[in-house]
Structures are given as structure tokens and as C-alpha cells.
């Protein structure tokens, strides 16, 4: 039987949820597959594998990316945070608790991506990254429902739990600014 792939593999090291990890990978393996299939961190989901649904959203060096659109070997030395690193059932992050409080899901498949995306999105507002709905591009955007809806539009929820997702995000955003 022939091996599954004859391509040479590459070593890559990065930190995942604070733990150093070293993998030997085909250079074409995406970060998402590295997480799910090699590190068995299945919290990040594969909804489309084309950067179109947001289910795989993962935080790399503080910024959100679609892990399905990025090759794992490009992340040497990076600090990667997945949903598993944000909080666990006995020690929830406030945003995770807010999602439970507001029922910010139905089937739950988009939820890890929504939470990772939202955390990095709030950072973006903080860093004055502009958006399409912002009135004044030179000013830092306020944390409003319209801003959140616009900035979260890369995360599809096919169950349509948007009202509750936005409510959960708004709650912790207001808590932080208050």
C-alpha cells in the first residue's frame, strides 16, 4: 500500500493556548486541520474550509483569522488561542458565560467561531480599526449594536441566533467599558 502522501514534511513550532507545540506537517496542511486532526482540538469547526463561514475563527497573536485559510507552517513562533484556551466549563470567560445567559446559539456549531471572533473584534474596536458602518473613520468606533452586527458579519449562524449572539457580545462589551 502506498503512503497517503509522498510530499516532504516540515517542522513547525508555535504555542497553542499557552502550551508550546511542535508538529511535523505537510506544508499544505491548514492551521485548522493542524488543530483539529493533529492536536485534536476540535473546538474550531470546519463549516466551509474556504474562509466563507467563520466557523474556524481562531485567534493568532491577538487577531482573528479563518484557520482554514492559513497554512500551519506559516505560524512558526505564533501564539494561537482556540476556544479551548478561552475558558473551560468550570472556569468560563465572561463572554462564554454571556452566551449561556443569552442563549447565543441553537445547534452550537458556529459558537466557538463566534466567541473567538467577538473577542478579537472588541480588541479591533479598541485599536480603532474602522468598519463600514462607522460614521467617522478618524474616530474610534463606539461599541454599538450596529458596529457589532457589521463586524460579526463574517460569522454565519445558519440557525439565525444573531439577536442573542449580539446581545451576549453587547453585554460584556458594555461591562468592559463601564
Amino acid at each position: 500500500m502506498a503512503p497517503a502522501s509522498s510530499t516532504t514534511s516540515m517542522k513547525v513550532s508555535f504555542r497553542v493556548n499557552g502550551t508550546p507545540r511542535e508538529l511535523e506537517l505537510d506544508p499544505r496542511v491548514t492551521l485548522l486541520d493542524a488543530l483539529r486532526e493533529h492536536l485534536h482540538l476540535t473546538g474550531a469547526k470546519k463549516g466551509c474550509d474556504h474562509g466563507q463561514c467563520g466557523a474556524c475563527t481562531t485567534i493568532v497573536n491577538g487577531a482573528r483569522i479563518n484557520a482554514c485559510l492559513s497554512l500551519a507552517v506559516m505560524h512558526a513562533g505564533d501564539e494561537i488561542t482556540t476556544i479551548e484556551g478561552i475558558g473551560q466549563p468550570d472556569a468560563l470567560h465572561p463572554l462564554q458565560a454571556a452566551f449561556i445567559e443569552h442563549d447565543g446559539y441553537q445547534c452550537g456549531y458556529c459558537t466557538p467561531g463566534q466567541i473567538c471572533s467577538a473577542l478579537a473584534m472588541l480588541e479591533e474596536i479598541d485599536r480603532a480599526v474602522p468598519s463600514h458602518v462607522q460614521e467617522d473613520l478618524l474616530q474610534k468606533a463606539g461599541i454599538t449594536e450596529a458596529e457589532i452586527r457589521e463586524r460579526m458579519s463574517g460569522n454565519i449562524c445558519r440557525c439565525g441566533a444573531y439577536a442573542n449572539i449580539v446581545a451576549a457580545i453587547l453585554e460584556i462589551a458594555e461591562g468592559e467599558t463601564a
Partner: protein
Amino acid sequence: MTVHRSLPHESGPLHVTGTARYVDDVPLPPGALHLAFGLSDRARARITAMDLDAVRAAPGVVAVLTAADLPGANDVSPSPVPEPMLAEGEVFFHGQPLFLVVAESHLAARKAARLGKVSYEDLPALLTIDDGLAVDSLIEPPVEYLRGAPEPAIAAAAHVIEGTMEIGGQEHFYLEGQAAHAVPGEGDEILVLSSTQHPSEIQHKVAHALHVPFNAVRVEMRRMGGGFGGKESQGNALAVSCAVAARLTGRPCAMRYDRDDDMVITGKRHPFQVRYRAGVAADGRLEGIVFEQFCNCGWSNDLSLPVADRAMLHADNAYFLPHVRITSHRVKTNLCSFTAFRGFGGPQGLVGIERVMDHIAASLRLDPLSVRQANLYDREGPRTVTPYHMVVEDNVAPELIADLAVRADYAERRAGIAAFNAESRVLKRGIALTPVKFGISFTLTHLNQAGALVHVYTDGSVHLNHGGTEMGQGLHTKVAQVAAGVFGLPLGAVRITATDTGKVPNTSATAASSGSDLNGMAVKAACDTIADRLRDFAAERWQIDRDAIRFEGGEVVIGAERLRFAELVEAAYMARVQLSATGYYATPKVQWDRRAGRGRPFYYFAYGAAVTEVAIDTLTGEYRILRADILHDVGASLNPAIDIGQIEGAYVQGAGWLTTEELVWDGQGRLRTHAPSTYKIPCASDRPQVFNVALWDGRNREETIHRSKAVGEPPFMLGVSALMAISDAIAACGDGSRYVALDAPATPERVLRAVDAQRGIAW
């Protein structure tokens, strides 16, 4: 009480931490193999040769199977008419599975699947309803419901309107794609994990494919990442493939479709064409109506017959049709197999009559809401009989609509919008109120049954299983609330584990919105049995009247004494009282003759209404939903938070279907919208800017579980108000002499074309 409360979803902490497992997250045993299908790239052809040498020789490939290599039935149909899993000499749609690749990795299987060399002799492909009708390609002869004498009534009416409406299909895009695992056991046994709404059907299909009795196959399903009907029959092929490959190789096998393959291979909502001719009195009331529904069934029967039936059964929506003929044509074409999707044909039937109401109002220059109100079923009397001769006994539509119109300021906003439109040339606004009346029960009467298995352990914890599947609708949470309520326990004391054909047998699909109605009742029956045994035991032990024993707050009140529930259970166990029970439920009252179109197909109806306001840009055809107000009837809600979530999500999905979600097949029958990049699914920014959802305050008049009503499907059709609001906005571009006649989905292109038509600009 744990019912009628907004308790949080049972899997919440798992969902938010990424630890809730879906099929593809379950670790595979060592040595597992991965599967992929090789697909047809013709819509209709004879296969003259299939050279799979390159596939077999590809790295990592363990086996390649064609139809001839299958050990048992090559049939994954949910209907009595077979549907081959792998093509047998002919192909019927572009994307049909031809052969199955079994390989060491998912990627290796997918790569190898592209290497097949297939020669075809092309045959004429039927890609549209009209193509099918031209050659009389039907799945079964047309079905007709008739009440009264519609043609003479139309001829005698003051006005006659007629038209044709095209209604597009819809991709489910369950966020978790189709997936299955199979693990061979000892002897002929096999364990299948499948992301399915119908574990029993998976069990049957796998058993037929392996030539083993049903008892050799166990199917497990913990949760789906969305189903919406798309996992009622469309998971069969993956589960059967895994089982067959596992049997042939002796190794565990896994299969999941890549998203693009998923969208190409699997069935979708049926596209429809609805033709209507109606006679109308001067006040807008219907005198008689004739509907012809044309249902695009795709290449196989699948669930098309009951879908087309349900479209007929909702051709009236909430309106009394005095003289009516509804004819349904089930057209077979060479597209994917159109299948179940939330509403199951009901939405297409309902859109037809809503279009008629809109058309009447436009033609007679009446307010569309007053036309709708004038045509509603009465609460009692002669105007309560449906086209299929069932009497509507539980009609709350007139009050519900009147209530919503007030809550949403319909009349004032309508006047305000007219004033706005008079001033604004580029932006136009529109508003519409549309109702929903949706029949609850499977129209195949025997499916209206369910079973449950409940265990109480000696520590007082409860473990239960039922036949329903969790896909995000909150079924397990509601059912656990029912069980906790019987024993007076907190919700956390009740655990529901994976739906399992070895626990509860012979189940129906979790479909037709029936999940909590059926399974809630079955679980309650099982819990009541155990509670009764505990009561009998306590009555004897404490020498007290049975009625003086209550379960509440985690305790058992026995006259003046109070025990922890666990203490009573432990004592009952020591006294050899059985602490496990099954429960069963069959829906009463329903009976239905589908060919004759007579009987009582539904136990009851669920009602709702929505007001939607939109703004359109008449230069680009783009639009926004500005505001939606919903009032929806879920009876006495088992869990108001879950029900409101279902209503909001259903509205978003329903509005998506009728506005941005457009399926495009090219002239070769290739689906060109096979990813969310080209198929536009509503996102957070598309949701109505103002979104008010309220529950109608009422109990189900029928004896359902705690007098609640089903919620999964009915609110989907609230999205129809978005289409009608867009139609209203477009009408503001013209002088009213020409009806907008907007087809669905109302994409920006369609809207722009309709705007230009109103302004006399031809395309």
C-alpha cells in the same frame, strides 16, 4: 415546575467551550479509513465506460467500489421507490455519486476521487419544471383537491385575477456538513454514528446494504450542527458507505462531504411554480380559486410526494377558499434530489396564496391587510372548512393579526411610508403583514408515534432517551424539563444521552416540528409510570393516601414528612421497586386519505403573523429589512426563551429563502452556487435592525404536552412578510396600473428589474 420556564440549553457550557462533540469531532479508532465519492459531471447520460485504474493506483487508496461491488442493496431512498447510492449505468444529475473511494486519509480519498475516467453518452437533460412538463416527466399522476365548484364561481365574480409565480429552492447549509462513522463490531454487528434526523432509517438502510437484520445495526446520534430537514434522508449515503466499507475492510470508516460537494450532491428545498386564477368580490373577498402547483422534485422520489402534499395542504394558509381546486404536478427533472426542508412544502403552498392576496389588493387598490383580514377563516360557522374538508377548530388568526397590527403600529407606519415614498425618489419603503397557519402532524399518519426509555438511579439521578434528535431546536432541553417536572427535580438531575436505536426502537424522523410534541409525551408517560410506582411504594410504607405524596424541589413530600428524592429512590430500590420504564405516545384524532384529499391530517394548527418593513434602493435593487414585528402562537410555551430563539431564527431563514438565497444551475445542470461565497446566507448585519418578537398568550386547545405547540417550522413562513414588503416598496415606484408580480427569491437583480418595469424601463 421546570416547564414553562426559560431554562438554559442543556449543552450550553459545552457549546461555549468547544467541547460539545459532533460526529466529525469524535476521535476515530486507530486504523480508520476515510471515504469520498467520485461524482458525475453530466446531468443526464449513459455511462459507456468507467476506467478507475488511476483511482486505485492513487497514493493511500485501499479500495474503490462501484455499484457492482456492493454486498447488498444499492438503495438509499427514504421512500418505497429505490434510489441508487452509486450510479448503475446511467446518471441522472450533475454531481451524482458514481463510485466510492476508500483511503488512508480524507485528503487522499478526495484527491483519488478526481482521477476517474468516465465516458458518457449524453442524453437530453430536463433542468426546469417546464422541461419536465414538456415531456410529461412526472413522479406520479397529478393529485387534485376539490371543494365546491370553482370555475363557475370565478366566472360569476366581479373581478378575476390570474398569474404565475416562480419560487426558488433553498440550500440547507446546516453549518455542520453531512458526516458519518462506522465501526465494525463482533460477528455481523456494526455501530454507526451519523449526523442524522432519522437514526432508524439509517439503521434500516445500513441493514439492507449489509444483508443483516436490523438488530445487528446500532445507530447513535448525539447532536447535529443544524439539520433543517437536510439530514432527514440525505445522510443515508454516507452512513451506508461507511458501513459497507467497514464491512469489506474490517476497519472503522469515516466520511464527511467537503462543503462544495455537500452543496452539489445533497437535496435542497423544492423549487415551485404556482399558477393561480381567482374570482374576487368588490370587497376583496375570494369567490373561487384554482391553483396549479408544479413541484420540481429533482431526479428521485426522495420525500417529494409528502412535500408536494403539504404544499397543497397549505395553499389556503389562514384563508377560507369558498370554491377551490388545487392540482399538484410532481415533476421529475435532472437536478439534485429535492428533499425535506423546514416547512416541508408548506412554505411554497403558503407563498402562493399570499401572492394572491397581494395581487388582489393591488388590483382592487385595497389595503393588503384588510384584504387578508376579509379572507381569514371564521372562528366558527361555514367559513371554517379547509380545501381538504377538515374543520379549523382552533383559529386564533383574526385576534392575533389584530393584536399584532396594533403592537406594530401598522396603520400609522403605512401612512408614514406612503408620505416618505411621495417625497423620496431613490429610496422607497414598503411594509406588509402576513399570517401563518401551519398544520401539525406527519401527514403519513403512522409516523405520529414515539417512544422513550427512562431510568432512575439509586442516587436519584435520571437518565433518559427518546426517539427525537437534537439539532439545535432545544428538544432535549424541553424534554428534560418535562421529566424533571414529573419528579420535582432540578433540570441538572436529568441527563439525556445520544439518541440510540438500541435504546428506543422504530422511531420516526425528527421532523414535521413534532419532536417535543411526540417525544415529550412519551417521556412523560415513562416518568409517570415510575412516579406512580414510587407513590404506591411510599403510600404503603408511610401508610398514607397516595394523593398526599408530592414531588417538588428535589424532595418528596409524604404527608408531614419530607425526604430527599434520592432517599425515597434508595428505599424503593431496597424494597425491590422497578425504577426504569418505557413510555409511548401516539397522536390522537388524526386520519388522512392522501389521494382523496380528505380527512384530518393535522392534530392542530400553529399560528403567527409578522409585519416587516423594508427599504429598497431603486438604483441598485439592494434592500434592507428595517424592522420586523412578530406575534407567534406556541400554545403554553415549554420554554419561552427557546421558542423565541426558534422564531427569530426561522424568520431570518425564511426571509433569506425569499430574498438573497438564490440557487443557480447552468445550462449543463451544474450548480454554480456551491459555496457561501456565491450563495448568500443572511448574516448578523442582514437581520432586521429592529426585531420585536412576542409569544401569543394562549394554550393549545388539544391535549398536547403541557398544552404547548410545535415551533420548529411554522415561524419559517413569517419570512414571507419580507417578500411582500419588498413587493410593496417596488409598487411605490409605479402608478398602480401594473402588478409587481415579484418572483422569489427577490434578489437585488430581480428587484431592480421589477422597479424598472414599474417605471416603464424594459430590460
